[in-house]
């Protein structure tokens, strides 16, 4: 059952959004998670709360404020217009901004908890062997928390693919630009095109399940080797 050009468009756009968002999230999220894992002040608790906020806020709240913030006559919108010469509202870039904010906790939290559960002694040992903090991070922290990076990246990607509420509010359902999978599916369902909806949904379910199964089967042996 080949996919229609319109469906391919939607899938391509969704994948692009999720990929771009995931890359940005890893780049921003890793140092942020590191900072949160190694500091423990009121300031860091506040930042931690801010990062976690999108988990709690309905996407509609976030979408509402983003809509206001990204409008052409808003400071952000005007700055963007000046810098790039293009409109920010209802653009792919706007979706990326929204998705990055919305999926941030999904990347930061697994990384932070991986960094925190790293035994202190291991990094200390690296330091005594002459590894600078950056080197410690690269050569010890990163490989030991490899699994968590996979988790963080797949959560970030997945959550962006699954994002709906924010995009419904700031996307504008523009085919080829902001009409991502979740919105397209909503469209099909609402217009009673159930056969097409089934096809898209089932495809996504099978694909996601296969991907997740693969990740979890890879993700190494259980912590306990024997029964107690």
């Amino acid at each position, binding site marked *: 059952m080949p996919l229609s050009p319109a469906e391919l468009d939607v899938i391509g756009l969704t994948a692009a959004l999720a990929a771009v968002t995931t890359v940005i999230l890893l780049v921003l999220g890793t140092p942020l998670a590191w900072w949160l894992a190694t500091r423990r002040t009121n300031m860091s608790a506040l930042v931690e709360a801010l990062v976690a906020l999108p988990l709690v806020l309905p996407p509609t709240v976030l979408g509402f404020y983003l809509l206001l913030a990204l409008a052409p006559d808003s400071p952000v919108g005007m700055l963007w217009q000046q810098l790039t010469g293009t409109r920010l509202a209802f653009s792919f870039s706007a979706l990326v901004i929204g998705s990055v904010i919305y999926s941030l906790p999904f990347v930061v939290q697994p990384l932070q908890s991986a960094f925190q559960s790293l035994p202190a002694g291991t990094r200390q040992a690296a330091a005594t062997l002459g590894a600078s903090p950056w080197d410690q991070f690269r050569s010890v922290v990163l490989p030991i928390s490899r699994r968590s990076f996979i988790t963080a990246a797949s959560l970030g990607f997945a959550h962006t693919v699954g994002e709906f509420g924010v995009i419904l509010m700031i996307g504008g359902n*523009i085919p080829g630009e902001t009409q991502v999978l979740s919105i397209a599916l909503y469209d099909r369902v*609402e217009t009673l095109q159930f056969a097409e909806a089934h096809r898209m949904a089932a495809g996504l379910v099978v694909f996601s399940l296969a991907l997740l199964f693969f990740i979890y089967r890879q993700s190494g042996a259980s912590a306990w080797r024997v029964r107690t």
Partner: protein
Amino acid sequence: EDVLRIAVAANFRATLEQINTAYTHKTGQKILLSSAATGTLANQVLHGAPFDLFLAADKATPEQLVSAGKGLLTRCYAVGSLALLGGNPDTLATAGLSVAIGNPATAPYGRAAMDVLDRPEFAARRTLVRGSNVLQAYQFWYSGAVDLAIVARALAPGAYPIPPQWHRPLTQHLVVLRQTDAARAYLQWLGSDTVRQMIDNAGYLPCP
């Protein structure tokens, strides 16, 4: 239960709220209102949404519900029209502007707006932003995110009216989903002159 559940197409929501306030004031009847695009609500009804009455924005949807066995009877309650926000109709020919409309897939007002934009004299390169219903299209314009929006005249009394002949007619029908006493009484009140006057005042035309 004595609560009346009404689903209403987004364009008519504000008007119906006025009508309901008056009805509740008069009879004490408690009414729960859900609004969305006509298509969205129809879909919910098909999957068991517990509405007694559904005021759609077209004629076809209520008829479909009746033939699917979900509706009992249909009846016209108003005829809508379009208005343009953000400029006069000539600006529709300007390239590069963004225009918000209701989602044509689910909202009759969005389909009608597409008829307008498809006219040869308005062929221009533009960004078409689709709200999930006509209300969201209006809200997109209101928040400043788009240049123009084509919405129901009832929502924007000060906007440029769009000639009715530019688009398919917006004959709005309601469908009775459950024939309860409360629904019957409410339906009676909806046909009254008082209500008709309120609908006229809101910017709708009388049914043919």
